[in-house]
């Protein structure tokens, strides 16, 4: 897992699509969203979860590996970029190779697009737009330690199996913690109100 990354916590997702709207606002692909929501139990429950690029580490980015035009670059810190506009030929190989169904092809522009972890923001030390706004923290950006400090006891999973192959990813899923009473509030840093500490 890379240092700061996105953690997806499906138990918290309310299906509001703030992430989708936020992704549209991001400068790196303004106007188009690279996130979509999945509904896991349609017709019975409102459960939903966001799908973002998982930034595969091992094997390194199947999408990039199959790209005949070498259009998908992986940065030194493990971020799998969206296709280089000057190289992409719109062949959709990446779409077929991705085990998570992430890359999209704009057929007219003959161009692949996908989440690139808001490189224009993360390079500045900001969180990606989707994880910044997600009202529930279903998308969390930070290190695993930062996540666990906020949500005591949660574990994360970054290895997924597809048939016989295993994929280890840069983005991880949150595995819920056992329900225990924690002495310190999690979820958000405790706030003081007008100078008064409310931790009592």
């Amino acid at each position, binding site marked *: 897992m890379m240092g700061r990354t996105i953690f997806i916590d499906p138990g918290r997702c309310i*299906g509001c699509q703030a992430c989708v709207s936020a992704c549209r606002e991001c400068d790196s692909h303004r106007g188009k969203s690279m996130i979509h929501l999945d509904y896991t139990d349609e*017709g019975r429950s409102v459960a939903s979860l966001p799908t973002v690029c998982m930034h595969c580490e091992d094997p390194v980015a199947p999408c990039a590996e199959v790209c005949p035009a070498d259009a998908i670059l992986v940065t030194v810190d493990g971020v799998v970029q969206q296709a280089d506009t000057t190289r992409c030929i719109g062949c959709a190989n990446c779409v077929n190779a991705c085990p998570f169904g992430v890359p999209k092809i704009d057929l007219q522009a003959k161009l692949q697009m996908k989440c690139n972890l808001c*490189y224009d923001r993360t390079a500045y030390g900001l969180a990606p737009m989707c994880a910044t706004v997600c009202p*529930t923290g279903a998308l969390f950006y930070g290190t695993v330690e930062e996540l666990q400090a906020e949500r005591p006891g949660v574990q994360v999973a970054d290895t997924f199996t597809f048939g016989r192959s295993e994929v280890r990813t840069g983005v991880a899923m949150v595995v819920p913690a056992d329900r*225990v009473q924690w002495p*310190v509030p999690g979820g*958000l840093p*405790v706030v003081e109100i*007008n100078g008064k500490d409310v931790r*009592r």
Partner: protein
Amino acid sequence: MTADPRAADPGTTESRAAGSRTAVPLDPSLAPPGTRAFRDAGGIPADRWHADQDGETLVPTHCCFCGVQCGMYLRVDRGGKVFGVEPRNHDINRMRLCPKGINAYQQVNHPDRLTAPLLRRSRDEDFREVSWDEALDFTVAEIKRIQQRYGNDAFGLLGGASLFSEKTYLVGKFARVALKSRHVDYNGRLCMVSAAGANKLAFGIDRAGNPFSDILLTDCLLIAGSNVGECFPVMTQYVWGARDRGASLIVVDPRETAIARTADIHVALKPGTDSAFFNSVLNMVIEEGLTDEAYLATHATGWEEVKAKVAEYPPSRAAEICGIPVEQITQVARAFARAPKAMAWHARGIEHHSQGVENCLSVINLCTATGHIGRPGAGYGTITGQGNGQGGREHGQKADLLPGGRSIMNEEHRRQICEIWGIEESELPPAGTSMMEMVWQMQRREIRGLIGICNNPFVSLPNYGVVKEGYDAMEFHAQFDFFLSETAANAHVVFPVTTWAEDEGVMANAEARVVKHNKAQDPPSGVRTDTWVMCELARRLGAGDKFAFADSRAVFDELRTASAGTVNDYYGITYERLEETGGIAWPCPATDHPGTPRLFEDGRTYHPDGKIHMQAVEWHPPMDPYDDAYPMSLTTGRTVAHFLSGNQTRRLGALVEQTPRPWAELHPSHGFRNGEPVRVVTRRGSEVFPALVTEAIRPDTVFVPYHWPVPTAANALTIDALDPRSKIPEYKVCACRIEHAEKIDDVPAPPVAPGQVSYPETQVSRTDPLPPTAPQGRGTSERS
């Protein structure tokens, strides 16, 4: 751009607290994207990102929509135009925003904006653009004509709770001083007045008892009649935060919402049975010996009466009324009463009823009897739907209230306000009637002229047939708005006014925290502030000396003085302090007073005896009776992508795409397929919606979201029965039946001014016959 203000927001706790998570410092070793150095450092090719942020400024302000009042920055370009949004690390939302907040900036320079006054002398004519002078002169002439002929009270004023508090203060003053009419009310009447009434009765103060942050400290969170995930999405982070540390979550809602899905106990009761349920829970609390007798003895009155009343609601009876398993009542009673700290938050689901006040009182009784009041993590709250639902009624916009929450019936309160306003007490009109009652009076021709400011009753009031008839009967109707709403399209005069980004002012959020909105851009030419229009109308009506306000700040200073010494004390709140602190909760009586985020910490309420006045509550069935022809319940509510009457959000492409149209949500047991046309019939009419079939709703209940106009308006079907005390309409339950239908009606495009073409992007999938299944997060029983 100067130092990046996105990293930390001066004045909020975040930036003061050491080791906070979100304030990540910039890594100076990293070159900015878009530069060669960045690429050489392993970054990305320079031409990929147009990070042309030079010259951009970020104006700190708040979202214009719901009662959470999330902090945000508006991105303003070199030319001074708003062009984007950036999350803001404010105490309330800590960067979070919902899709409405993210897209809100798109209204500011939207092509549908009204930019010149529109006028027509009769409804047979088309609107034409006129000068401000012509529009104002015509309006003043009509006001004078109507008032001379039929009396002052024949002209009414309806305000809105999305206005800044300064403007709501002006609405109240304008009606009483310039129009000299008793008929003024506001659309907050449709929002949280039931909770307001109950809080006033029980605590002598009309606001939530605890700040949002207290939710993080609670051990048991009860959410009643609130679809937090869709209506107040950013509040969810507090709910999940509480859950993270092991707090139990109880949700009372006929639908399995995103919050209910993860609750420890989800009580899916039949709409309109809330007070029977809460009475029964209290009955069980007593039965189990879990009441806090010491607390009751010192802090409450009326306990004996309440005890006697709830004895009439044993779980067996309530379970029958509410249609729920009997064990749930005991479970809720134990979870809530045994928790060291428990909190109850409620919203329109229990307030929009002909027994809305009683429902809220029954929740207060539960909190009081268990001693869960006035401590960190223990208390009650009501979640305001509209941005300024809380502040909008505090300063005299409501029919029975004067500034500072004073009563218009109280001699002393009247005298105090007349002194501040500089008028004789005899000149101050008595209390008027509520919004729905005013519409009935319009229908009966008792009100002949009307000005509406920032509201859209054609979509938001129940029983559309009556509303249309009332408005059609108006001899003169003017409307203030920045888009041509369905109601404005029916007016004689439309005044183009500013959006929230073009003026400054304050709003009070659901925690009663007053926050300041800042001006991000100049209004388009031809557009004036609501303040300017009201003052100008007052001047032309001969009351100019009482309305000599240059700007919002001048109004706010008068408002502060007018509220001094009352329960709703704003005196100590100044624009400067708000900017410094990020928000102050009232009462705040002095400029060195820190504000009051949590009420009753000293154990005293705002009644003279300092006690909680508990009230016994009797449940009665909803006003629209069930029978063989109408056996089911229709209930209404919001979706996350739209706000209230949709006049603003139904014009924003991304939000329209997310939720293009309403649907009828029903249980699979009725045999409908997903997307099939279903006719929902009530005693007031019928409409056809695509079916959205899901097990996440009670089999006896149908849900339709209400943001759209006829022929796809939930409010053409709802009943205009009112709570006798709060006068809130019973939106959340009426009798209905469902039938198979042939064809689903298209959603009409929002009206635009003559010469304007509707923004093509907002037309996306509006005529798509299928319900927005997946995007709603509701799921469907089959993929269409």
